């Protein structure tokens, strides 16, 4: 992990804290899910934390993000309240979506998060539309779109990136390239590298070590700066690995155990912790405290979420239309 920037020191500790909070949130959710307490599907973000943390660290609060089915990390990194997140995962009324959305539709619009989404590839249009709004209404803001590697095979990807290119929209496409789309490896579903796809639209595609939070921050910083300067979109191909199966319940038997082990050694939290310690920017005690704080936060958050009331039946009928 090459760190050019001494200014990274305080930032890296913050990023480590964000990543730890995401990881702890996911582990807490995982346990609850396995206890049978959570309805629906959970797609855990564990392993990909450096991407959410690194990208969000270069955004302003009013920048937009759009997310996908594996979206918990994005919310936490952008500052969403974890208690309300748990409430949403449990389908409770204090959830961001009053329990109507669940994990796959989690969103905090007060932070300009345009939502997780159950349709793979839908976020690409949504975030590109937000970039359109940034260009024409909210000058200076940018729109960051998170998507999976497999989502780049959808037609929406093609149409949105082309439109963003010709309109020079302030959009950054962050592909969280965990090499798999459910059970199929990237090489089974595309013959090129994800970064190479940007060439078809005429803007830069950059390959990034997605487990190196500093590298993500660096690449995202450049892409966001380009977008803010009106120079148009960038595609970031962030290589990473999900620690678990596609969703809880999938044992991920289709992956090579050796490859899995190798990736676990490159756990973004381990890499960041190593650097923090080796640069003496943090002691193990500092890191332990961050971990402990995160655990404490998530316990309280879980408690809040679990104990939030279920929505009343009348909630079924509200919010179909506005007003």
């Amino acid at each position, binding site marked *: 992990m090459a760190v050019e920037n001494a200014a990274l020191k305080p930032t890296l500790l913050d990023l480590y804290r964000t990543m730890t909070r995401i990881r702890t949130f996911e582990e807490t959710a995982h346990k609850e899910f396995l206890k049978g307490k959570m309805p629906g599907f959970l797609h855990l973000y564990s392993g990909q934390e450096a991407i959410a943390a690194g990208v969000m660290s270069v955004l302003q609060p009013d920048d*937009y993000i*759009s997310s996908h089915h594996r979206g918990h990390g994005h919310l936490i990194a952008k500052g969403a309240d974890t208690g309300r997140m748990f409430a949403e995962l449990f389908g409770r009324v204090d*959830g*961001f*979506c*009053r*329990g*109507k*959305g669940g994990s796959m*539709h989690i*969103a*905090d*619009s*007060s932070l*300009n998060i*345009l*939502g997780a*989404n*159950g*349709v793979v590839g*839908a976020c*690409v*249009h*949504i*975030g*590109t*539309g*937000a*970039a*359109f*709004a*940034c260009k*024409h*209404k*909210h000058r200076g803001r940018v*729109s960051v779109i998170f998507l999976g590697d497999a989502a780049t095979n959808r*037609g*929406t990807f093609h*149409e*949105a990136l*082309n*439109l963003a290119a*010709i*309109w020079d929209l302030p959009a950054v496409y962050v592909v969280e390239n965990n090499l798999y789309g459910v059970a199929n490896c990237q090489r089974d579903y595309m013959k090129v590298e994800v970064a190479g796809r940007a060439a078809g639209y005429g803007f830069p595609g950059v390959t990034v070590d997605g487990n190196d939070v500093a590298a993500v921050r660096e690449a995202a910083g450049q892409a966001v700066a380009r977008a803010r300067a009106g120079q148009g979109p960038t595609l970031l191909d962030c290589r990473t690995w999900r620690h678990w199966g596609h969703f809880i319940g999938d044992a991920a038997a289709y992956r090579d155990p050796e490859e899995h082990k190798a990736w676990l050694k490159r756990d973004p939290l381990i890499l960041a912790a190593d650097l923090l310690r080796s640069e003496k920017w943090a002691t193990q005690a500092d890191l332990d405290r961050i971990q402990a704080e995160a655990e404490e936060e998530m316990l309280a958050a879980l408690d809040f979420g679990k104990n939030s009331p279920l929505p009343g039946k009348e909630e079924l009928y*509200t*919010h*179909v*239309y*506005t*007003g």
Partner: protein
Amino acid sequence: MANITMNYAEAVADALKLEMRRDPDVYVYGEDVGKFGGSFGVTGYGVFEEFPDRVLDTPISETAIVGTAVGAAAAGMRPCVEILFMDFLPIAMDELCNQAAKFHYMFGGQMKCPMVVRTALGAGMGAAAHHSQSLEAMLCHIPGLKTVIPATPYDAKGLLISSIRDDNPVAFLEHKMLYSLKGEVPEGDYTVPIGKADLKREGTDVTLVCYSSMVHRCLEAADGLEKDGVHAEVLDLRTLIPMDKDAILNSLAKTHRLVIVHEACLTGGFGGEIAAIAAGEGFDLLDAPIVRVAGPDTPVPFSPALEAEFLVNAPRIIAAVRGLLG
């Protein structure tokens, strides 16, 4: 407010210009809507000319047109986008039905999608299977979406202004054979409320429930029936979702007979919904079977000889009413 005679396309353009003047968040985009003026000429009635920076040409990317409108709307704008032919709306069905229509609900009221998708439906130009369909029924099954379908220049302008101001996604369906239809339209700002049917003609013997170009076919039929002493009431729904159920039931309370008319194919068409309301809540008002006069269950054929046979016309409506009255 003075009235001006203008055609349906101009009335649509008039609404666009008024709303774009009033609200800087209204943007228009779609294929060839810019300098070219739109394939049906709508934005050519001065919309692009007045707002060259807010009327934007797009590539042939229907999912992007509708999908980015969702994001732009959620981020505070009020896009009014165009899909050239309604036949291509199925391309963007996910964006319209899974995203736009569900945004407000699935995020628990946090977000809204004030956007309009204008599109041209209907047969009559010899444009065959891919440029002639009336697919409104597909949209009417999707909660969260409103479906507006004006039959006259007056309604087109007033309803489009309402649609653009609405905080929900609206599918605004323009019949391509109506674009050149002229009518009296008030100058300046006025709205026609979404969800209110319009009694285009009063009658006592039978209710013809219809919308879009079929309003005119029904009015012709009503003229014809009048000669036989049959007084047909013509109810133009104007918006399908929300549907003005009360207007239908009130009319049935008068006439006790229902003929539903739409250009779209019979089976699975919106006529079924109207029939179900009448045969449910309105059952006791009915003195006779409900009749649907609709397009046949076929794709739209090219040959003018066959297309003419496909289209519902006044004689068919008259025949159906006569059959009903016995």
